[in-house]
């Protein structure tokens, strides 16, 4: 029915990363974070037994949306913001494909904001990877819907007066069933998250913190930078407290009423700490995690939410099967020649 995902990885991999390299000349800027995302994706697909003809990469417009050209799979580089709509139609006529939507912060959240929320709420069985560099790169440096307030760009020379949107929060508001965050500088983590997304049945949404070296270099460095990341990033582990900080100064999160606060971490006493539960069917915990933002809190990475819900495509297939079971497969003759006909004789 849905994409064939083996329950356990084959110990002898069928494919290698190179099987998924298209050979088209990659045209991102030297040093662009997209290279490592592409590599992580190719690495991830090699972990599965899915033949490459069963993958489709669909993208919109923007630097990251060139992604499909570099994958040796089926690909469709569509129009700005609309990739989820094309993926939707494709998903609904072919249950066997493994579909990835590759998008960016402008593509998914600005021009494609409407399609984004509806793809999330419908729980269509495909994966959405959002490359977030907080800037419009392909149009050469205007602020994006995720740019911070005050950001000076070519179209905001006196600083952006907009409030940025929080992609994960928007996804949880639309009740997405799989939500995760990763970063371009950690290929292993990226690949692990991508693998989880592929194994999830339903819509999977991944935000990747990506560095645009030309127009927004080091935008994420205050969080993910080498010197700061221990204190400002927290890697989520299911069933465990949210522990972060330097080896000699470990901290964790606990709830004070509805609000999170940072406390010193004592491995001997974890009572009262916020324990990550990605499978919680209620969205409250996942929402709370989306609100852990810099500079007040460490930013969570990993899987924020992974819950099961019927997918739109399965429900559609089921409805069709049920009707056919009840009424029989329609016959064209019966459809045209109904009870309301009359006959004219010569």
């Amino acid at each position, binding site marked *: 029915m849905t994409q064939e995902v083996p329950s356990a990885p084959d110990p002898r991999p069928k494919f290698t990363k190179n099987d998924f390299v298209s050979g088209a000349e990659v045209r991102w800027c030297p040093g662009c974070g997209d290279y490592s995302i592409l590599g992580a994706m190719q690495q991830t697909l090699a972990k599965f037994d899915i033949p490459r003809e069963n993958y489709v990469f669909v993208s919109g417009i923007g630097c990251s949306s060139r992604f499909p050209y570099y994958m*040796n799979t089926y*690909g*469709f580089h569509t129009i700005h913001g609309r990739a*989820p709509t094309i993926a939707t*139609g494709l998903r*609904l006529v*072919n249950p066997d*494909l493994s579909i990835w939507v590759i998008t960016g912060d402008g593509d998914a959240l600005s021009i494609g904001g409407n399609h984004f929320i509806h793809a999330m709420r419908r729980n269509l069985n495909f994966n959405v990877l959002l490359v977030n560099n907080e800037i419009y790169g392909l149009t050469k440096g205007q602020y994006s819907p995720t740019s911070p307030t005050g950001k000076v760009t070519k179209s905001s020379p006196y600083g952006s007066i907009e409030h940025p949107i929080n992609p994960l929060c928007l996804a949880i508001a639309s009740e997405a069933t799989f939500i995760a965050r990763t970063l371009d500088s950690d290929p292993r983590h990226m690949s692990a998250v991508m693998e989880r997304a592929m194994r999830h049945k339903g819509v999977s949404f991944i935000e990747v913190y990506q560095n645009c070296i030309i127009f927004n270099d080091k935008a994420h460095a205050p969080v993910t930078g080498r010197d700061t990341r221990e204190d400002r990033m927290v890697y989520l582990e299911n069933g465990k407290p949210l522990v972060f900080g330097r080896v000699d100064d470990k901290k964790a999160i606990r709830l004070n009423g509805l609000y999170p606060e940072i406390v010193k971490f004592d491995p001997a006493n974890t009572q009262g700490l916020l324990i990550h539960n990605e499978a919680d069917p209620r969205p409250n915990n996942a929402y709370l995690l989306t609100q852990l933002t810099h500079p007040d809190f460490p930013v969570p990475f990993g899987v924020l939410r992974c819950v099961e819900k019927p997918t739109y495509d399965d429900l559609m297939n089921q409805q069709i099967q049920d009707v056919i079971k009840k009424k029989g497969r329609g016959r064209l003759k019966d*459809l045209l020649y109904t009870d309301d006909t*009359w006959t004219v004789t010569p």
Partner: protein
Amino acid sequence: MAGKAKQLVPAVTVRFAGDSGDGMQLTGDQFTDTTAVMGNDFSTFPDFPAEIRAPAGTLPGVSSFQIQFSETPAFTPGDVADVLIAMNPAALKVNLRHVKKGGLMILNENAFDEDGLEKAAFPTNPLTDGTLRDWQVVRLPLSDLTVNALKDHPLRASEKERCKNFFALGLMFWLYDRNLDHTIEWISAKFAKKPEFVAANIAALKAGYNHADITELMPTRFEVRKSKLEPGTYRKVTGNEAAALGFIAAAELAGKTLFLGSYPITPASSILQDLSYRKDFGVRTFQAEDEIAAIGSAIGASFGGELGITTTSGPGLCLKSEALNLAVIAELPLVVIDVQRTGPSTGMPTKTEQTDLLQAMFGRNGESPVAVVAPQSPAHCFETAIEAVRLALTHMTPVIYLSDGYLANSAEPWKLPALESLPKITVQHPTRGKGPFQPYARDPQTLARPWAKPGTPGLEHRIGGLEKADITGTVSYDPDNHEKMVKLRAEKVARIADDIPELTVRGPQSGPLLILGWGSTHGAIHAAVDEVNAAGKGPVAQAHLTHLNPFPKNLGAVLSRYKTVLVPELNSGQLLMLLRHQFHRLGQKDGTRLTGYNRIRGVPFFVSEVRQAIEELL
């Protein structure tokens, strides 16, 4: 009982008019169904406001339904009505101009009270002030008569009053000597779960019929004999119903899953609704979040190797244009159904117009050819749907299907086709060959590119909105390649002309005057041409285009055989503009004059106005 004089008439036009809540569309539908069963030819015209329930009794709330039924062929719903039934003063006011002078008006006098007159902005009572002196007026307390007839029924008074449409229908059934059985059956099925409503509505229907029969209310009865329709099996069909059936049939003929991505919009929504019932045919309908998602999903389905279509009206076509262009450059099959309505912008959503032809032709960035077809009558929507799909799948191109609000809702008898007579639609998907797969290699005849289905081993490839290199389909910024691709896309659509029938002319094959139309104006033009010729003023020839891009190959030759070509359109001359461009040499060489007759009032042509336009050229 039925002993009164009966007058034989060849054709009658009846108009039902009331408040949006009075059930006039339903009453009209029932009258039509019985008309069909009685063997008449007919054509209907539902005419209603966009407001669902404007304040009761007001002018904007008036909903009307017109039907012409006949022994002779009925090409249109009739210009003006022989009989009007008006449920209130507002319905009278709005419809006065739609009734023939000397015609019959049946008016519900209960509604002509101070309040009703004020809402309809009648300063004095038209029943008594001489306004109606040119008509035969039958005043009836329709509401009282209905409530009285139902006095023993266990319904609230307001519920009884609402049965008055069936009382009125009963009157009309008497007037035209119709059988009540079909409507009684319909009421029984419709209200099966509420037996008290079945009883009340049937009682109201019979009471109306009997009231006409036993009173001297109406001077004569009329008889409209069976029409001499071609032998065959018929059903009543509206344009949107026929379109929905046509797309299902086309998918079956092509062996494809039908996928409709759609966003509700008047007057196209009923195609989405009809198709959403057809899960037994495996039809997949997706009600998208907006017009763009609707076409995007259809393109996704086409990319997936199935039949993607999308339904909309003019404002939606504007929103879809960028995605439509993606289908143009990706060279994927797609059918965009535009049920045209008045514009610009929201315009008059329930009113008809032929004003999207130039948008269909040119409303996209870059040079972006698509095929364009247009059905000419409600039943013709069926075969045109199949034709649109055939062209899209055979030629790997988007096709725009231009219906309109009039065709969408208007009904006529449809002679059902033999399934064997439907065209074959052959689709071939490539499989792995010897060399590398070339997604932009072309069929030497049609120039169609291969339609590779994702999931096919060895054909992995990438397409998209960036310009493609010829044959390989890789991204290309090469200037010569771009020019070549622009010309290839144009040539591919132009070559469809080799695959469509030539234009046929009804009447003299050359001469002083040809009337050339397209789309829903066919009926009015046909009737007007017949009238002119019957009056001995002709001979005038008629031809009608279903294929608007490309045109049939012989169109230029046909035009050149006439001194004058009149192009009636419900726009300011859009087909005329295309003809004058494509055949600009005609005038110089052969002296053929191309001229238009154009109305943009949101209503279909009257036969009389087209006739007058023709006569002015003779």
